[in-house]
């Protein structure tokens, strides 16, 4: 990573540090203060949006490890999130186990199911692998709908509030702290994973799996490890989603959701830790602004619009923004951010 002019690393510890300069630390603490005081200045609605962003971010970070770092395309991510959500729901509702047990088991179960569907990745890749992960999406949802004695089937299943010990996360603000803390841990894990031997092996597999194998990287092990980690995070996200919403049925985990997750990491920037953060925040906020502000504003103010036009604008505009993004910045928001930082560091010189 490039450093600002005049900044040097003199030890390995400095070289490995995520936050290297005083400015980094100040900005980081400023961000943390802003984040953790959010319940003081945000209403329940915006805290709800923040919670949704946090949960989506965990799942997208997992998908980014699988697809962005390791190059294994998965179009069944919503299915793996469903596995986590239902595992947690069943353990905390039917077996009345503590939330933390549900949370961990949700990750492990989703990771295990991910391993099963990841096995074909050893023999197939690209579009062929995408089709096998779509199969995961359909099979998982079918099982959830038809194993009704356990999952509630089409009726669905209630999920209690998350709780740790005697503390119950009832308010939106307390749920925000829970979700944001777990999100931060997941991002920290992903950031560090990318810098380890495992992360470098993932990147080698993504860039050229044959060359990686020749270098001694065990493709079977690392591809399945990527599936496990990606799906483990999806399971954690699913568990948090279940306890946040309080009621699950399989219709909440559609193929459209899975595709949206792919869109988020592409718009944010594949293969970077920052990418999913920017992509998720961008997509979720765009959805909210279009739905909550833009369409009702059009309906209220431009009454001459033909029937249904205002609502039709939402998917059109949503699609248009994504297309423009892919055309103008195919390397994602993370790349744009990197350019901005470089320009700031070199300013006033262009090159």
């Amino acid at each position, binding site marked *: 990573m490039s450093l600002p002019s005049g900044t040097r690393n003199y030890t390995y510890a400095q070289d490995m540090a995520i936050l290297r300069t005083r400015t980094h630390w100040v900005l980081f603490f400023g961000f943390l203060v802003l984040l953790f005081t959010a319940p003081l200045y945000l209403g329940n609605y915006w805290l*709800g949006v923040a919670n949704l962003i946090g949960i989506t971010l965990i799942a997208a970070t997992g998908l980014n490890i699988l697809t962005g770092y390791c190059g294994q395309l998965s179009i069944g991510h919503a299915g793996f999130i469903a596995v986590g959500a239902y595992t947690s729901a069943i353990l905390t509702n039917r077996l009345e186990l503590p939330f933390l047990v549900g949370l961990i088991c949700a990750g492990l179960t989703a990771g295990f199911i991910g391993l099963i569907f990841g096995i074909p990745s050893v023999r197939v890749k690209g579009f062929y692998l995408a089709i096998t992960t779509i199969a995961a999406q359909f099979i998982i949802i079918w099982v959830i709908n038809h194993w*009704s004695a356990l999952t509630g089937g089409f009726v669905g299943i209630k999920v209690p*509030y998350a709780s740790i010990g005697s503390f119950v996360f009832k308010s939106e603000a307390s749920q925000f702290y829970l979700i944001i803390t777990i999100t931060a841990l997941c991002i920290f894990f992903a950031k560090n994973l990318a810098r380890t031997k495992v992360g470098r092996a993932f990147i080698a597999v993504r860039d050229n799996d044959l060359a990686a194998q020749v270098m001694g990287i065990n493709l079977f092990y690392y591809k399945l490890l990527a599936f496990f980690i990606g799906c483990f995070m999806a399971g954690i996200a699913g568990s948090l989603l279940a306890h946040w*919403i309080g*009621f699950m049925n399989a219709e909440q985990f559609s193929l459209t959701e899975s595709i949206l997750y792919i869109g988020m990491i592409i718009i944010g920037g594949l293969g970077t830790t920052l990418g999913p953060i920017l992509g998720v925040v961008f997509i979720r906020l765009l959805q909210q*602004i279009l739905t909550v502000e833009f369409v009702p504003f059009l309906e209220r103010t431009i009454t001459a619009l033909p*029937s249904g036009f205002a609502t039709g604008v939402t*998917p059109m505009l949503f699609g248009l923004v994504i297309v423009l993004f892919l055309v103008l910045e195919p390397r994602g928001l993370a790349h744009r951010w990197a350019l901005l930082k470089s320009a700031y560091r070199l300013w006033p010189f262009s090159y």
Partner: protein
Amino acid sequence: MKHKRPIIVAGAILLAVMLAALPFVSACAPKEKTLKIGITTPSTGAAAEKGSPMGHGNLDAIEYINTELGGVAGYPVEAVWLDNGYDAAKVVTNVKKFMDDGCLLFATSSSKMMSATMEIANRAEFPGLVCFNAPVLHRPPQHIYGQMPDYGDDWAAFAAYYMENIWKGPGKPRMALHLLNNTTGYGALDAAKASAERLGIELLLPAAEHTPTTTSEIDSLTRIKTLNPDILYISSTPAPTAVIIKNAFELGLYPGVTIGLGHAGITKALVDIAGADIVEGVYGVFPTVNWGDDVPGMAKAVEYCRKLHPKDEGNLDYITSWAQSMIMAEILRLTVENVGYDVLAKGDVESWRAIETYGIQRLNYDVGGLHGPASYTPGDNRLSKSVRIFQIQSGEINPVTDWVEAPLVKYEEFEWFGK
């Protein structure tokens, strides 16, 4: 070319600033004493063909209430309407916004959207009204109320009608079920499992299941035919229902068995898709009147539809959501009369409790005859409990009964019902 990029960047920044400024534009609008309600419809997404006219019906009724009736008890009704795109994540944040904005109650059209958000509303004691209703939404009763009877009630009403008026044979009639693979279909199965034995009907289980996009059900119907049923009950939407009846016709299963349909399936679209000859004699259950029927509430709905959304004319979903807004207005009127405006002005849990106690639970409203009367019975959160049995005769969907009250089924007392 050199100057294009700054223009694009400037344009993008301008668009972002405009979008970000919208909340402040709304916030700067002059405040007046209003009664806020939240309405969310799937006006885009997979159910837009139903959600879009329903959103129009909701908002047109509010327009009528404010312009012609002077609002409710002198206060204009302010509808916070949001499209949910038939997306669970969106509807969750929509309902949180309703609560944050001080809405007094909220309404959804689809059972799927309500199931995604009902627990949030129940936890907060925020009263909700759902148009298309499923047992899971109101059993056990909490803070969600059904505007109309649920998909299980359709089955119960049809089964009771069949036993009283059609079945002449000895012993128990044998009923096969063909269900859409969601709450629309499985709501009927819940009712069948709960009441078939009491009504003296033998169920041929497992039920056949189909998807909304099915193109052939020859296999499943061949299996059903071997079971020699007397009744085939279909709980689904019009297109798959048409496929099933056409296939049953081709297999010689129908005519022969009696076919009954839930309210999501028996519409004009079914006759158009399947053909009048093929669906001749099919029975169905529906909870509202037909478009243009001579009932007091119809004239204004038709007038506003022609004036504001002429493309929705003839659409029964428009009528149901018009009725939904009228019911919400009546709930507000009762609450204002009983507790005054000040309690409702807060838009908090105290206001929501007042809405339930003094509005919803004192409701006794005929909805202008658009559907069965809406009233509250303790322990039963279905506000309208009435359906009518229809039969398709020469391409027309004609009522063969007056309003039939669907009995309450306490699903939660069955161990197989969702915990």
